[in-house]
């Protein structure tokens, strides 16, 4: 019983959108879109699961004075401040969470602009550095495959900058060709294979064969 119900639910929930995919009839579509609108809400509810876990873990850390516990205080402070303004904002306290009509920032928006965005942007920007170190290490002509990788990367990098164009006008043309033909062909191959793999996985989930995500093991 405890094991069958979730599997049946998965089967029916999975059959609905597949049915609706082929059947344009209004009521079928309605069932599917209604379920969709429910699940968006379920995903919203789920965030609290994460919040609970974060608060638990960090409170524990502080209590036990575990290694690095002062940072747990900083984390919880960030969560409390932003969470408070965000929660209050949904009741239109402090003018909501966006900018006010006169263009001034609400506290939530201010923290977003001067805290969240620079932190996020800088973490993202670190990629430029990491690409440099990764390419230095990995693009080495050790064997046939690595040599192909190396040359494709070098040609494209040259083809993207004016310098490459000045050396030879073939660099940008070669870049375009590589991106448009062999690279595109490989990506198509990956996509077709991966889509089949995903569909097969989906079928196994709907049929209840794959169920480790439910913590139901592989069956007994």
């Amino acid at each position: 019983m405890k094991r069958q119900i979730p599997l049946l639910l998965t089967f029916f929930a999975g059959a609905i959108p597949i049915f609706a995919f082929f059947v344009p009839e209004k009521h079928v579509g309605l069932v599917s879109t209604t379920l969709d609108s429910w699940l968006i809400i379920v995903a919203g509810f789920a965030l609290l699961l994460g919040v609970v876990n974060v608060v638990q873990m960090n409170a524990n850390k502080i209590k036990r004075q575990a290694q690095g516990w002062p940072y747990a205080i900083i984390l919880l402070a960030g969560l409390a401040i932003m969470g408070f303004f965000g929660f209050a904002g949904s009741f239109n306290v402090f003018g909501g969470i966006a900018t006010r009509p006169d263009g001034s920032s609400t506290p939530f928006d201010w923290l977003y602009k001067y805290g969240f965005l620079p932190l996020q942007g800088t973490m993202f920007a670190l990629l430029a550095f990491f690409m440099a170190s990764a390419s230095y290490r990995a693009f080495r002509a050790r064997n046939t495959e690595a040599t192909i990788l190396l040359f494709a990367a070098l040609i494209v990098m040259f083809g993207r900058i004016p310098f490459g164009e000045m050396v030879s006008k073939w660099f940008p043309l070669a870049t375009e060709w590589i991106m448009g033909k062999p690279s595109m062909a490989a990506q198509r191959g990956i996509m077709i294979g991966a889509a089949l793999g995903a569909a097969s996985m989906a079928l196994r989930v709907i049929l209840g064969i794959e169920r480790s995500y439910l913590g139901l093991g592989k069956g007994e």
Partner: protein
Amino acid sequence: MPGIGTWLAAFFTLCMLSFLYKDNPFFRLAESFFAGLSLGYYIGIVMNQTLKPNLFLPLVQDFHANWHLVFAAGLGIILYFRYIRRVAWVSRWALAVYVGYYVGVNMMQKLHGEVIPQVGDTMLSLSYHGIGTLWNLVMVIGVLSVLIYFYFSTEHRGVVGGVSRIGIWFLMISFGAAFGYTVMGRISLLIGRMVFLVNEWARPLIGHIT
């Protein structure tokens, strides 16, 4: 003199950049604050952009038309049954419906939206019409050889092995080219941060001091 917001943003930017040298208390401070702040941010976003417009407002404003949303809230609450040992097993129901529905949606999306058009677009004419024929041939061979590389239930020896080797070469061209092509976009992001540091923070600061 830059304003307090600019100072804060510059401080966080520098803290994050310091990770490149090595892990240090400044990075750890920024990282911890960022983790908390971002989670708080999404509390605000989920409340304001998901739960309020999709659940609370419809229920409050017109219960008769939207009563079915009570089930949605019910499914959401079921997730929390895991904290009550006796009914913890029920919490799987929400997960089961969630996974089942999207797996169904994605299955059709993959078959209809990816497999069919990608195969269709590769059905290129190989009758001679100049250099384009050769490029069409490259495309067809590329797709076929990569597909054969992914063939699992045959040993990759002989012809199959040879073709799948060609598939690997195509994959390598694609990975190298995609890597090289992405560099520019990533540098643009770095330029954005550096322009901020130099022009919006350092320049006014130096101007103020001198």
